[in-house]
């Protein structure tokens, strides 16, 4: 019998205590912000969309190798010895033309593993998070600033250079083969 009244009394009491808590919260100011009109200031280490400063990139492929989901694709082509590709902002001389530097942001998991291995710190994460697209292909960002013709030209240059070198080597080897024969003929 006693537990009957105890239950009823406890029920009523805990209901009133709960009501007091929610009533106090009526006067607490809201903790939310009105998003599209007001945006939060994100901290400096924030990890959102990547950015690549292609002028500093030396094409070492470290970031592509570090990425766990293989979202970075890099293709490079050696520069000709006569060309001057310029220096990175740290003073290093560049030796490779970067003809393809694609990052697929649909695959990127925003883990920041690509930022640490970069020797020139040219790839880093910004705080841009509003970059949705309607088509999935639009999320493949191409960071190279060369035009497609220039890229073909670099590749063609290097292929020609290699072909010339190979031809020279072949000619030198043929000359070497021919030379001892004449010496033998002489001697």
């Amino acid at each position, binding site marked *: 019998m006693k537990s009957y009244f105890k239950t009823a009394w406890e029920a009523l009491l805990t209901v009133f205590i709960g009501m007091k808590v929610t*009533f106090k919260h009526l006067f607490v100011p809201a903790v939310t912000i009105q998003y599209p009109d007001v945006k939060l200031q994100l901290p400096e280490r924030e990890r959102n969309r990547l950015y690549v400063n292609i002028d500093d990139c030396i094409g070492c492929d470290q970031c592509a190798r570090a990425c766990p989901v293989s979202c970075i694709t890099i293709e490079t082509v050696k520069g000709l010895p006569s060309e001057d590709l310029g220096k990175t902002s740290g003073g290093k001389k560049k030796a490779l033309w970067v003809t393809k530097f694609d990052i697929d942001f649909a695959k990127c998991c925003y883990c920041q593993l690509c930022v640490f291995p970069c020797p020139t710190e040219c790839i880093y994460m910004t705080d841009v998070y509003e970059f949705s697209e309607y088509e999935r292909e639009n999320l493949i960002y191409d960071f190279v600033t060369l035009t497609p013709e220039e890229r073909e030209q670099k590749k063609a240059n290097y292929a020609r250079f290699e072909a010339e070198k190979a031809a020279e080597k072949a000619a030198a080897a043929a000359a070497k083969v021919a030379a001892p024969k004449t010496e033998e003929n002489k001697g």
Partner: protein
Amino acid sequence: MIYDFFHNLTGSYFIADIIQAILPLFFFILPFALFAVWWERKVSAHMQDRLGPMRVGYHGALQTIADILKLFQKEDIVAKDIDKPLFNLAPVLVFIGSYGVFAAIPFTSAYIGANIDLGVFYIVAVSGLAVAGILMAGWASNNKYSLLGAMRSAAQMVSYEIPTILVIVSIVMITGTLNLNTLSEMQTGHFWNWMILGGPGFGIAKFLFIPFMILGFLIIYISTLAEVNRVPFDIPEAESELVAGYHTEYSGMKFAMFFLAEYANMFAVSAIVAALFFGGYQSPIGYLGNLLNAHWLIPIEQLFWFTAKGLFFVFVQMWLRWTLPRLRVDQLMETCWKYLIPIAFVDLIIVGLITVL
């Protein structure tokens, strides 16, 4: 006064009667239902430290209108093997069950929809129509979970009518009338003449009544919470429970009718509790009209007090919704049959004894 106005306008008692009875529907309850939806969202938001609707209109005031417009243009999806007449009739019955009650509630001393001598009896009877509507909705949906939900809901509403009636009977024993208008007029004067504080008249009986009146008020408030399917008794509407509710198969305008009927019902039961225990439309502190000798001001003040009391009880219902968890079905029934009904019965007997002696 309004009755005479319509009578002069149309020249027939019958039409004047009808118009007078359905006036509160369009001018008070429908706007109230629209207001209540917005208010619930705002109250819940502020209790949860957030803001609620803010974009549509000033602080989201037009949000409900936008929602209603959306519901209007929704496709009325009907499942294949439903029972068409019952399916279409169910929301209408539930609607009538909620709105029909307002004909007998005294809004102000100069206007009451229909001055029925059996006011309270009529109210309890008409609210029972909603039970029939819910059962129809569950059966006609051709969905075994809807049927289960509807049966539970019907059982809940029918069981909780009993403590309500017991408490109403105890009030009727003190005052001797079933007419809500007379009940409200009996509680004139200041707030110490209200039923919750023992009723009009002065004497030892008044003070003896007070604890039992408070107990009766608590019982009837809890029972009417269950009648309108609000938390903690909202099993029929709960989304996170397994069994779907009786209105799962409804969409568009029919769903809107269920929805609006719920808010109107909330106000109806708040108004009844206010009329029974808290003096109806009477002011607790005297009338400004009397002070300024402007007697035409009094009915308007009374309307204001009536609305304020009703709104306060609706606010407490919303407050409870956002504070308490849900009861399980068997615990719900246990609360009613093992706790509320015996306590209400004992309350009734003691009140009766005090009245007689």
